[in-house]
């Protein structure tokens, strides 16, 4: 009888073996997705989508836009490498993030924040878009908007800075207002894509 039981067990084991495959962990090459932060604001959203569409359409890299609560949160997320880039304003960078004295001159301010972000934080200010927004300017300073990108990200994607810098000076105050209104009324990604297409960036 023991041999019969053995036969039954073997039969059931055979069934299990034939209907399953060996299991072990493997890993495979996974593409990097770039993450762009955007504050809950039509201006931030349309600019973040503009970076996203430009990068994804010209390089094929997948780009994801994620919401962030404020400038300090965005900065912390950059330092923690949870974001690859976001849009910052020179006055905010100088006063709110770096806790430094306001600088009134726009060019001097840009040079100052760019230098300290690079040296102390490994974050790179790329070319300003071409507009400033007083709503974001701490007292005694100005708020010129520019993409800020992690240095590590630029090392992994060496062509990225050159591509994003194509947007440098492309958006003046009045253009930004138009984009903002359209972004608030519709889909920021569609607005961004339309702008890029009309200006032949994509």
């Amino acid at each position, binding site marked *: 009888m023991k041999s019969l039981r053995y036969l039954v067990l073997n039969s059931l084991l055979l069934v299990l073996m034939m209907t399953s495959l060996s299991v072990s962990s493997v890993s495979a090459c*996974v593409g990097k997705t770039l993450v762009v932060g955007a504050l809950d604001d039509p201006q931030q959203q349309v600019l973040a989508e503009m970076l996203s569409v430009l990068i994804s359409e010209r390089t*094929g890299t997948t780009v*994801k836009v994620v919401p962030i609560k404020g400038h300090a949160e965005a900065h912390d997320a950059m330092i923690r490498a949870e974001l690859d880039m976001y849009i910052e304003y020179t006055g905010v960078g100088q006063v709110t993030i770096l806790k430094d004295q306001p600088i009134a001159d726009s060019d001097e301010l840009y040079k100052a924040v760019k230098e300290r972000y690079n040296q102390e934080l490994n974050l790179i200010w790329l070319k300003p878009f071409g507009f400033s927004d007083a709503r974001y300017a701490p007292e005694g300073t100005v708020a010129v908007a520019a993409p800020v990108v992690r240095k590590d990200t630029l090392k992994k994607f060496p062509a990225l800075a050159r591509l994003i810098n194509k947007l440098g000076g492309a958006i003046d105050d009045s253009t930004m207002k138009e984009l903002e209104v359209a972004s608030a009324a519709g889909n920021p990604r569609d607005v961004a894509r339309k702008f890029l297409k009309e200006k032949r960036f*994509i």
Partner: protein
Amino acid sequence: MLTLTSIRLLFFVATTFVLASCTLGAPSLKLKDDVIENTVTWSGEVWIDGIVTVKKSGHLIIEPGTRILFAPRDVDGDGIGDAELLVEGSLTARGTARDPIIFTSAADQPKPADWKYLYLDFARDVELDYIVSEYAYSGLQVHFCRARVTNSIFRYNVDGLRFSTVNLFAAGNRMHDNQHGLRYEERGSEAIIHHNDIQDNEIGIFVVTRSTDRAQIKENNITGNRQYNVKLGWQQPGDVTLPNNWWGSLAPDAVEETFLDRKIDVSLGHVSAPEPLTGPVKVSDWQKHEGATP
């Protein structure tokens, strides 16, 4: 107590079940991070919730009519599903016109990038005939190997068919409703791509970078792609020549308007379409042309 009769009955049931599994296909085979190192045949329905790898020693044979469903799980939060089928060994997936082999999302409401890709990486031997690959990041990615892809459909993906550094033959395929129908970084590839429909994608052909104009992409229907029929990537300074294709128009200016190249960005190469066809090719006629015999 077990009697001899009941033992015989149990053995009969077990044997029948095993035979049914081998010959008719076990329904809903569920896999996670599994490794295939020997010859394995799939049929019926196969669910993948992880990365299934066909190792160098492995040979995966997929029977006509098999449905491979990938779980739409995105653990790393990058917006791209994590499930994939990675082939480093051999893959034979020969469907039929009536019973294609389907690679698709297991989601109730599927969308592009629900799963990662069918990925051929240094694979030993691959033949894909009459497959449908949909709702992936890439319907098929081919790298560093030789592959033959015929009579297949790539749809609703980010990239329909994508390759680099390969010896690829692709004919009789339809790539539609993808972000990019065909995407490649040539990097020395020997690619023959003819008698395919590359239609109704956002971008028909995306030449990302490192193309030295060796890929032979001719006698295809490249029409109706919503943004561009051909787009050169940011780092593609070399020219790309696509002779003898049907572009949906006989007017050269209208055809050139569907290319993103040097005329939009001076740092890019020029896309040329010499000797365009005057009408669409019949995709199903691919076997009468070059490369039909392996």
